[in-house]
């Protein structure tokens, strides 16, 4: 992590599930955001989105294969936090994911990660086959 809040913080990590690496990366990102004066609400939104993206990568992308990893890349400066989350799976079509907020889907226990990412991040889009998510959060301008 960069010691200077004026400089951007950039990094990447190839994560394995259940190894403590996710928590370490999340803690480092939270620290970088804090140093660049992102609010607690912004950090909450970004942390939740990263968690959902990584878990989608492990569970749906890599199909819980312990030999496969999820790569996370980040760029954080004073105005924007941008992330790439890439799994080793075959991808998917994000346009066919059922809407979990419809009454008939409310009691289905899964399928809310992507909608939370879209709700909390400024931008989220999939590249290629659908195993590469790019998402960004623009820091709200202080009044």
């Amino acid at each position: 992590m960069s010691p200077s809040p004026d400089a951007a913080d950039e990094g990447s990590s190839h994560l394995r599930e259940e190894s403590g690496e996710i928590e370490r990366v999340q803690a480092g990102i939270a620290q970088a955001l804090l140093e660049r004066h992102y609010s607690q609400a912004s950090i909450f939104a970004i942390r939740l989105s990263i968690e959902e993206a990584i878990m989608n990568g492990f569970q749906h992308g890599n199909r819980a294969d312990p030999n496969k990893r999820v790569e996370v890349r980040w760029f954080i400066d004073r105005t924007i936090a941008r992330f790439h989350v890439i799994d080793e799976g075959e991808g998917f079509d994000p346009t066919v994911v059922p809407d979990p907020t419809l009454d008939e889907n409310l009691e289905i226990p899964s399928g809310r990660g992507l909608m939370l990412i879209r709700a909390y991040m400024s931008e989220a889009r999939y590249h290629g086959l659908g195993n590469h998510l790019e998402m960004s959060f623009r820091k709200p301008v202080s009044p």
Partner: protein
Amino acid sequence: MNPGTSRIRVTDLDGVMRVEFVDRDILDEAAIRQISSELVRRIDAASAPFMLISFRGVEHLSSAALGTLITVNSLAKKRGGQLRLSDIKPSILEVFVITKLNKLFHISDTAERALEGFGRT
């Protein structure tokens, strides 16, 4: 995480199981699986399970945790009981609102309010 350590605290309040979380963050998949199996076991062991889950002290929660709550809610209803939620801080309540799960769950500001008229009596 120590797999032998419970992630929840449960107290009996006149037939209502009051559940609190040990952790501030309910994000880790393994921890959520453990919480889920503990809650389901307790629901299954009761003839008409009335469960109040308090989120006091909880700072973060993932969609996997929401999935566990949905499962527990369905099981409790199926067995003639009910699940209620309380003490949810505003940032987490927003997650329920975004996902519209505030329509599915009985949510109260405080545990005391959630307990009003709850249970067998």
